[in-house]
């Protein structure tokens, strides 16, 4: 029997019972649409988080103090200090830049305006390049200014606007806390990265922050404590190689063994991988939910196909008498079930893609249509049709022609 004929008969059977067919497809439609929307939401969330991570910069290593081991009090030498960052920059090969940050806050006065509680970010000269933040006007401070603890500041873009409006702030003096400082640059707008607004900040040499804003007696003994050192690896270098170098250097400086190191080094990839593991778990949960709804849809198809076989018993008898082989009958009903499920799949895909778009528009959540989810959903719908159509189709093929012809 010709495929075209099989398809035609199956399509007619579905079309003649259009209301029933749509109701039958509903399970598959909802299942498929749900898969696509849910995957789009989770992919959107993942993309947002990945952007946040990569917007920190590229090829970054994060060197962190490991307080979990030993704790603060157990060994006064433990933890990262500012000199560690300098050592990494000077002694480790293939390092493009090293950035250390120290936060503080103070009131800022300039031009007769006072802004309260402005976040101060003490950093190193590599900060703009490592963190991918440009300088719009003037310049960032240099190593010499850092070493000499010179009182220079760079303003975040919106901070500059609040303090000086359209006037040129370069060369102006502002008062931070009670320290007079000279404006040497204005940062380019960066916007929100996660929860952090980089544009409302004040940037200055970290040495100035240590000295003027976060002084500590302990620091005089063993250096200024830092929590996190950003290391940018050169693009063509092997990050693992750099990690090993830093580990050996810091272990030596801190006089600890690598097994009991007081620091940990993670890469951006590590963070992304952790994130991906979380969303992968979430996705497999979604897959189960969608799988269950597809199975429910499949049972609906099987149910209606059994009804259809019974209703068309006489037709089956006629076809058998005229010479249809059991496999002809079986194929006929299998194709009908497949057509029901794949048509449901296509409608579900349309609803899912449309639904994801609408959902993305109306809610805060970002949605990203994943092409694989469409293929997966359609494939599952087809498999469900074949699986749940098999039993009714086989039942039809096994009917006795004499009994079937006698059926009223």
């Amino acid at each position, binding site marked *: *029997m*010709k495929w075209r004929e099989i398809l035609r008969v199956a399509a007619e059977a579905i079309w003649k019972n259009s209301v029933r067919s749509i109701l039958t497809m509903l399970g598959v439609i909802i299942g498929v649409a749900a898969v696509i929307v849910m995957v789009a939401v989770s992919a959107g969330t993942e993309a947002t988080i990945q952007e946040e991570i990569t917007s920190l910069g590229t090829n970054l290593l994060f060197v962190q103090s490991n307080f979990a081991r030993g704790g603060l009090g157990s060994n006064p030498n433990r933890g990262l200090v500012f000199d560690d960052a300098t050592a990494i920059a000077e002694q480790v090969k293939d390092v493009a830049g090293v950035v250390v940050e120290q936060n503080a806050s103070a009131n800022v006065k300039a031009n007769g305006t006072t802004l309260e509680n402005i976040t101060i970010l003490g950093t190193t000269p590599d900060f703009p390049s490592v963190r991918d933040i440009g300088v719009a006007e003037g310049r960032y401070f240099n190593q010499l200014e850092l070493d000499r603890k010179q009182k220079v500041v760079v303003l975040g873009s919106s901070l500059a606007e609040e303090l000086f409006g359209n006037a040129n702030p370069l060369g102006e003096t502002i008062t931070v806390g009670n320290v007079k400082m000279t404006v040497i640059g204005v940062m380019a707008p960066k916007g929100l990265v996660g929860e952090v607004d980089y544009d409302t900040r004040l940037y200055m040499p970290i040495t100035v922050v240590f000295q003027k804003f976060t002084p500590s007696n302990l620091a005089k003994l063993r250096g200024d404590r830092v929590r996190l050192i950003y290391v940018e690896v050169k693009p063509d270098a092997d990050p693992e190689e750099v990690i090993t170098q830093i580990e050996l250097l810091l272990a030596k400086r801190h006089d600890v063994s690598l097994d009991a190191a007081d620091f940990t080094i993670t890469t951006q990839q590590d963070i992304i991988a952790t994130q991906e593991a979380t969303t992968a778990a979430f996705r497999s949960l979604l897959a189960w939910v969608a799988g269950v709804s597809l199975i429910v849809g499949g049972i609906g198809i099987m149910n209606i196909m059994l009804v259809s076989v019974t209703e068309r018993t006489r*037709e089956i008898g*006629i076809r058998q*008498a*005229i*010479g*249809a082989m059991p496999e002809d009958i079986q194929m006929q009903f299998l194709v009908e079930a497949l057509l029901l499920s794949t048509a449901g799949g296509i409608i579900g895909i349309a609803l899912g893609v449309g639904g994801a778009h609408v959902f993305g528009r109306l809610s805060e959540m970002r949605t990203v249509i994943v092409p694989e989810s469409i293929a997966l959903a359609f494939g599952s719908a087809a498999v469900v049709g074949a699986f749940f159509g098999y039993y009714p189709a086989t039942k039809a093929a096994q009917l006795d022609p*004499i009994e079937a*012809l006698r059926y009223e």
Partner: protein
Amino acid sequence: MSAPIIETHDLEQVYGLGDAAVHALDGVSITVERGEFVAIMGPSGSGKSTLMNILGCLARPTSGTYYLDGEDISDLNRRQLAAIRNRKLGFIFQAYNLLPRTSAVRNVILPLIYDRTKRLTMQEMEDRASEMLTMVGLEDRLDHQPHELSGGQQQRVAIARALVNDPVLIIADEPTGNLDSKSSLEIMNLLKTLHERGRTIVMVTHDEETAAYAERIIHLRDGKVERIVHNEKTKARVAA
């Protein structure tokens, strides 16, 4: 002389087991030659439907042999029987048994669609179906669906369907059972014409008038051949 179209030896059909066993057929041996028009008659329960199903390759006998067109088909499986029905047999049923909501042409095409040997194109099939419908006088009803046709017209569509695969044997089961006398006459005259053109026809009927169109009438009773009556008048007419 070529082999007979039908040759059966001691056909038995037993339903049930042990004491409850019913012998629907109890040793039926008949022969139908090529080009014959044979009627099978008998009261209900005589086994004529059972014989019909076996001759029509819809059922297999419990024992005995059946040669159709020289081929032993007693031991064929479901698939092989389906292929035999498709290529060698044409069925005409009392209730027409057309597919509902399907045009006359589509109904007539059906045997060709299940034919695995001919491999005709759809166009060739449709042409052949139209030809058959024209032959039974329905050339202006090609696209009508069964519910748009009278009983007599529906039965003529069924006859066209029975002829489309050029079968060696036409099996008619009470072909006029659902028809009024005028339509019955038309259908019987059509069968007579087919017979005159050389078709072999086996017809089950309980109606004497209908049976009179046949050359030979096989009377069944209690699963056995009771007697065979030769209808000299019909024979003479065919010869002439």
